[in-house]
C-alpha cells in the first residue's frame, strides 16, 4: 500500500499497531495497548496461563475491576450467591498471583469496566483496547480501536499482548444536523440500529461522523460507540477532537507536561483523510430524530415514542415478520397500540451505556422536585464508585431519593441481572441499558430501551413518555 494514500481513522490505528504483517491469507499480529479484565470472562484465561506456566506479559497494560456480579445494596456483606462470590474471589486471587491491578468493591475506581477505563484517563485516542466483553466498543468514542474478545483471546492477550486479526471493513455513519432538546445520543444510536439492523454492522468498524457527532460530549459519544455492537459491528469510533482532549486533560493516566503536547500533536492526526474510501456509508438526519424506544426483543426493533407498536402484518420479510410476532407475544403488546400508552413497573437508570455523571445529571434535572409515579420502582445505579461520589457531591442522590427512587452502589446491576437486581416474570422496564433480549434483565422480564431523558419522563408519568410530554404538560 502506498503510504501517502488517504486512510480512514480505523486504518491509521490498525497500521500503527501491526507487529507482523500476515502473508498468504494469514492474519496480522496486532499490538494491544490496554487490556481490561472483569470477573466473568477471565477465570479460564488465567487458568490456561497457569497450565502452560506462562506469565502475564504486560501487567502494566492490564487492569481489572469487579462489576457484573457486584451487589448494589449492601457492598460490605458477603455476596450471597455462591457462583457470583466464587467468580469475584477467583478474580482477586488471579490478580494477586499475576500482579494485575484490581479495583475491588469499596475502591473508588471500582465500577463497570467501560466506565472505569475512560474515567482513569487510560482510554486514549489511537490506542487498541480489548476486554472479554462485547461492549468494549464504548472506548472507541476516544478514537481508539476497541473491541470485545472471547476467553481464549483474553488468555492470548495476557500471554502475548497481541492478537492475530484480519483487518475489519469500515462503515461511515454520517449524522448531520442538530438534535432537538430532549433528543440525545441514545436516540441517535437506536435510530442507527433500527436503520441498519442488528446484523448490519457485521465485520465493520463504524466511524460516527458529522456535525451532530461533533456536537456531542464524550459521555454521549461513549453511549453511541457502546451500542455499535448491537448493530453487529466489531467496533465503533469517533475521531478525537478538542472535546476529547478536554475530557482527558488532567486525568490520572493521561499524559502530562511535554508528553501531553506530544500526545495531542499525534492525536490531531487521527481522523479519516479527505478522499479515503469507506466500504459502506449510512446517513442519518439529526434534525428529524425524536426520542426513541424499543418495542421488541432486540435493539433493532425500535420506533419513535410518538409512534405505535408496529403491526407484524406490515413487515414484508417473512423472517422479520415472524420475529416481530414472537417479540410482541413475549412483550405482551398489541399491534397499533400507542407506545406512550404502555405502563412500566420499573425504571432502570444505569449500565455502561448511560451511567456516567452526565447521564445522571440529565436524569436528575428532569425528575428534580417531581414525584415517582405510583407503583413504579426506580433504580439509579452509577457506573462507578467515583461517579457515585461525584453525583453525591452535586446532590443527585438526594434528588433521586426525594423523588422516590433508589440510589444504589456501582455495577452492571439490572443491565443483565447477574446480581440480585432483576425483573420478575412479566415485569416491564424502561431501561437505559443496551439489550432488550428475552430474559436479559430477569427471567420473563420485558425491557424497553430508552435514553436517560425518556427514563426520567417515564418515571414521572408511569407510562413510556418523552420529555416533550412534560414540557407540553400533556400529562
Amino acid at each position, binding site marked *: 500500500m502506498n503510504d501517502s494514500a488517504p486512510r480512514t481513522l480505523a486504518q491509521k490505528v490498525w497500521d500503527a499497531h501491526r507487529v507482523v504483517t500476515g502473508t498468504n491469507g494469514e492474519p496480522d499480529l496486532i499490538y494491544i495497548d490496554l487490556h481490561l479484565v472483569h470477573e466473568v470472562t477471565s477465570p479460564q484465561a488465567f487458568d490456561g496461563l497457569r497450565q*502452560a506456566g506462562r506469565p502475564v506479559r504486560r501487567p502494566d497494560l492490564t487492569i481489572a475491576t469487579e462489576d457484573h456480579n457486584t451487589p448494589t445494596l449492601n457492598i460490605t456483606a458477603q455476596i450471597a450467591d455462591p457462583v457470583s462470590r466464587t467468580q469475584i474471589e477467583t478474580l482477586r486471587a488471579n490478580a494477586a498471583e499475576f500482579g494485575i491491578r484490581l479495583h475491588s468493591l469499596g475502591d473508588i475506581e471500582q465500577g463497570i469496566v467501560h466506565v472505569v477505563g475512560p474515567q482513569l484517563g487510560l482510554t486514549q485516542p489511537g490506542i487498541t483496547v480489548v476486554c472479554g466483553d462485547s461492549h468494549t466498543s464504548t472506548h472507541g468514542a476516544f478514537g481508539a480501536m476497541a473491541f470485545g474478545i472471547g476467553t*481464549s483471546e483474553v488468555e492470548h492477550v495476557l500471554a502475548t499482548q497481541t492478537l*492475530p486479526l484480519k483487518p475489519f471493513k469500515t462503515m461511515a455513519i454520517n449524522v448531520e444536523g442538530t438534535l432537538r432538546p430532549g433528543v440525545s445520543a441514545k436516540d441517535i444510536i437506536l435510530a442507527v440500529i433500527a436503520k441498519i439492523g442488528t446484523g448490519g454492522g457485521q465485520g465493520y468498524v463504524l466511524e460516527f461522523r458529522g456535525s451532530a457527532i461533533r456536537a456531542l460530549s464524550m459521555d454521549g459519544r461513549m453511549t453511541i460507540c457502546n451500542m455499535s455492537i448491537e448493530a453487529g459491528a466489531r467496533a465503533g469510533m469517533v475521531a478525537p477532537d478538542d472535546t476529547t482532549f478536554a475530557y482527558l486533560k488532567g486525568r490520572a493516566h493521561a499524559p502530562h507536561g511535554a508528553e501531553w503536547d506530544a500526545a495531542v500533536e499525534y492525536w490531531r492526526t487521527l481522523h479519516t483523510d479527505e478522499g479515503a474510501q469507506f466500504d459502506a456509508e449510512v446517513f442519518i438526519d439529526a434534525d428529524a430524530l425524536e426520542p426513541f424506544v424499543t418495542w421488541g426483543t432486540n435493539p433493532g426493533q425500535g420506533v419513535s415514542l410518538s409512534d405505535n407498536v408496529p403491526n407484524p402484518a406490515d413487515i414484508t420479510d417473512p423472517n422479520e415478520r415472524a420475529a416481530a410476532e414472537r417479540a410482541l407475544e413475549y412483550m405482551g403488546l398489541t399491534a397499533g397500540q400507542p407506545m406512550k400508552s404502555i405502563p412500566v413497573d420499573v425504571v432502570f437508570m444505569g449500565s455502561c451505556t448511560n451511567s456516567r455523571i452526565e447521564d445522571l445529571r440529565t436524569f436528575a434535572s428532569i425528575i428534580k422536585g417531581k414525584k415517582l409515579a405510583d407503583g413504579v420502582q426506580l433504580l439509579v445505579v452509577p457506573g462507578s464508585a467515583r461517579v457515585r461520589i461525584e453525583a453525591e457531591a452535586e446532590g443527585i442522590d438526594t434528588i433521586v431519593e426525594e423523588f422516590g427512587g433508589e440510589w444504589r452502589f456501582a455495577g452492571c446491576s439490572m443491565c443483565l441481572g447477574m446480581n440480585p437486581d432483576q425483573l420478575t416474570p412479566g415485569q416491564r422496564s424502561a431501561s437505559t441499558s443496551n439489550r432488550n433480549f428475552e430474559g436479559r434483565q430477569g427471567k420473563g422480564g420485558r425491557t424497553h430501551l430508552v435514553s436517560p431523558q425518556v427514563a426520567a419522563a417515564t418515571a414521572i408519568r408511569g407510562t413510556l413518555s418523552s420529555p416533550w410530554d412534560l414540557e407540553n404538560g400533556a400529562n
Partner: protein
Amino acid sequence: MDKLTVITGVGVPLKRTNVDTDQIIPAEFLKRVTKTGFEDALFQRWRQDPEFVLNQPAFAQGTVLIAGLDFGTGSSREHAVWALRDYGFQAVIAPRFADIFRGNSGKQGLLTAVVPESVVEAIWAELDAAPGTEVTVNLVDRTVTCGSVISPFDIDDYTRWRLMEGLDDIGLTLRHEAAITEFETHRESWRPTTLPAR
C-alpha cells in the same frame, strides 16, 4: 502444549452419531471458573447409565475415542474439548466433525482424525471382540491402527504441523516474540500504562 507424534491407548467405542457438545458436557458445568477438572462432567448424563461404555472397566482408562458421524455439533463451548482432554482422551476418531469443535480441539491439543465410516465400524468390531484393545493414531504417517485394521486418516496440514510442534495459538504468536519486543521498544512513552496505581 505437548508435541504429538504417535498416540497409543485403549480405544473407546462410542456408537452414536450426532454427539453434540451438550451431550459431551451439559450447560450447568459452564459456570465453573476453571479450565481444568472437567473430567467428571464428560458425558455426564450418559454416565448415569451403568451400561455406558466409560462405566465398563475395560474402557474406563481409554484415551482414544471412536465415534460415529458428526461428532461435536451444537454449541461452540470449548468446555467440550476440555472435558475430553481432562478425562484423558488424546484423540477422537470419527467420520466427520463439527467445524467449531474441530477448531477448538486443535487449539487444545486434542487430535481429531477423520476416517471413512467403514473404518469406524471395523474398529468398533475389533473393540467389541477384544475390549481393552489399544488403538494407535500415528500423526507422522497419518494412520490409525487397531488390531487388524489399518487406515489412513485426514487432518489438515496446518493443524498436523501445529500438533507435531506442540504449538497452540499462543505458542505460534510467541514465535514472533522478538518482533513484539521490538515493537514495544518503539511504543511512545506517553501511551497509557495501568501501573503504578495512581
